[in-house]
């Protein structure tokens, strides 16, 4: 009896970790698949495993159209990230630090884009540009990307501003720093981690966006658009290479910051 109840509680205690492991493996399966098939020597379609090759990695631009689409994507993401981060950071500071009459209205207005499906935002912007006689293209795409990244930046940076002790800025003013010096020497460095993660999020959202881009980019090709169109006939293995390298790079950045902050914390504890 006793052995049985031991076994049961053991399973119960073990089941949650085992479940979590299975869930994580489930989440990662398509990633492994994508990475593995970046090494496939595919014949016509990259759907069946043929044989191992490094050719796709050494020869990324074998598909010229793919490479230019990736180039466009990088350009669009970079520009929209810069603009969205600047606008969103300013909004976040204002919303946390100042009390003004329409504050809750502004908060709500900034929440709305997140509650709007991409298809609605994409079609809305497209109809605006269409009605204004502006054709789809690079600039409308950047404008659209800034718009859907903006709210996410505001939310991310707001969280950081909330943790910032106003006394630090006051200490700066007290120690002879004028308002702009206070901002650049104290506020900004302290907000930087939040601003950087907002920018990273922004970049990831923008780089991976398909629906809004599809409605506003016209003839400008992007990486997701390339895959969407190629999905009909078969996605070349080079696309897997691109996606895998973006993935590995991002994971490396995240892991590196995590590990370094982990050891920093350890060291702090040690000294104390």
């Amino acid at each position, binding site marked *: 009896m006793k052995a049985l109840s031991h076994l049961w509680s053991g399973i119960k205690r073990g089941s949650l970790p085992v479940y979590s492991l299975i869930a994580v493996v489930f989440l990662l399966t398509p990633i492994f698949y994508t990475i593995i098939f970046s090494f496939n020597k595919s014949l016509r379609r990259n759907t069946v495993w043929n044989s191992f090759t490094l050719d796709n990695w050494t020869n990324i631009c074998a598909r010229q159209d793919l490479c230019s689409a990736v180039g466009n994507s990088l350009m669009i993401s970079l520009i929209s990230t810069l603009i969205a981060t600047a606008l969103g950071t300013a909004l976040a500071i204002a919303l946390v630090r100042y009390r003004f009459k329409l504050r809750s209205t502004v908060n709500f207005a900034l929440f709305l884009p997140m509650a709007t499906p991409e298809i609605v935002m994409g079609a809305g912007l497209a109809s605006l540009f269409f009605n204004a006689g502006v054709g789809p293209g690079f600039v409308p795409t950047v404008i659209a990307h800034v718009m859907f990244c903006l709210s996410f930046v505001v939310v991310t940076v707001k969280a950081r501003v909330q943790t910032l002790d106003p*006394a630090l800025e*006051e200490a700066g003013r*007290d*120690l002879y720093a*004028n308002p702009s010096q206070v901002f650049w020497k104290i506020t900004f460095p302290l907000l930087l981690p939040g601003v950087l993660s907002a920018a990273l999020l922004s970049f990831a959202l923008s780089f991976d966006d398909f629906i809004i881009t599809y409605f506003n980019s016209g003839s400008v090709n992007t990486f997701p658009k390339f895959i969407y169109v190629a999905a009909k006939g078969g996605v070349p293995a080079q696309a897997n290479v691109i996606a895998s390298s973006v993935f590995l790079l991002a994971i490396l950045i995240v892991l590196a910051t995590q590990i370094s902050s982990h050891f920093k914390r350890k060291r702090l504890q040690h000294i104390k």
Partner: protein
Amino acid sequence: MAGELSVAGADLELIDVRKDFPGFTALDDMDLHIPAGQFFALLGPSGCGKTTTLRIVAGLETPTQGRVLIGGKDITDTKPHDRPVNTVFQSYALFPHMTILENVAFGLRQRKVEDPLAKAQAGLDLVELGHIGARRPQQLSGGQQQRVALARALVNRPSLLLLDEPLGALDLKLRRQMQIELKAIQMEVGLTFLHVTHDQEEAMDMADTVAVMNKGRIEQMGSPEALYDRPKTAFVSRFLGQSNLFVGKVSEENPNSVSIEVGGAKITVDKKRAEKHTGTVAIGVRPEKATFHEEKPNLGADHVLIGPGEIIDIRFTGVSNQYLIEIPNIGEITVFAQNVGKSPVVELGAKVWVSWKVEHSFGLRDLPDGTEDLG
């Protein structure tokens, strides 16, 4: 201006300063003068407006009305970064993204002082933390952070140093030690210190002058001894130490003294120690100035005698014993008696008389909360 900082302290003057927050008056017509080079303590309960006063002096808050003068110069409209004032913040507010040395050098760099790092190092040495300049604030204990905050303000040699409950977060032992160090540093640098605290013992120990604040006003100002010996309001008499207060109508007036009648007893105060000589008056005496007797003593007119009453509580606190005596028609009276080694001769329930010298009575300007003017 920031450039012309004095090496010695300057005096501070607040004239008729008022601060209204939406729906709340934090400071009410405050007048204050702090002579140069003084260690001045602003003492009051939490929420009475101490921090608001400091923030107005530092320029972090604009007064609704009134002027702020430092060294005779009106700085009411001067920006915080242009004021010859530095603050040790209640939360220390050390910059977490800079090393300790850079924290201390911040003000020096802003003012483009030559060789800021060497001067910052000297500042750290002054607070005996010269060896931790390379660390970050998060790696320091509360006491160390407090000293760094002090050094960061002091290295700028401001005319006036503002300290907002700088010892509030420290444990008792460290607190007493830092009080001594802080006082020593003030004597050494000779700057004007405006020290805010809610700890009356701290204010009494450290300050040359103490101002007691209550509800946005200064109730009384003076040397710690004077405040203790002759509190002028009910609030001060109770916030600084303990007091027994008696309220009654003036029943007798002599050239040098007035007496009130309370529950059939006569309580007398010297006129020069009383703020008010007519109508309803509150008279107080400190518990350690009173003594009790098991037999009714025969005392002259230079003593106040009340009783008999009953001892309803005794506490042994080491140096002294505290007796709580209930006197019919008068109320409860606290008496401290020195613990001189003898076991207490009286017991709970004993019948006693209480007396003190008239010269130890003090007469208040106002009446304690909850008592009525008797007409």
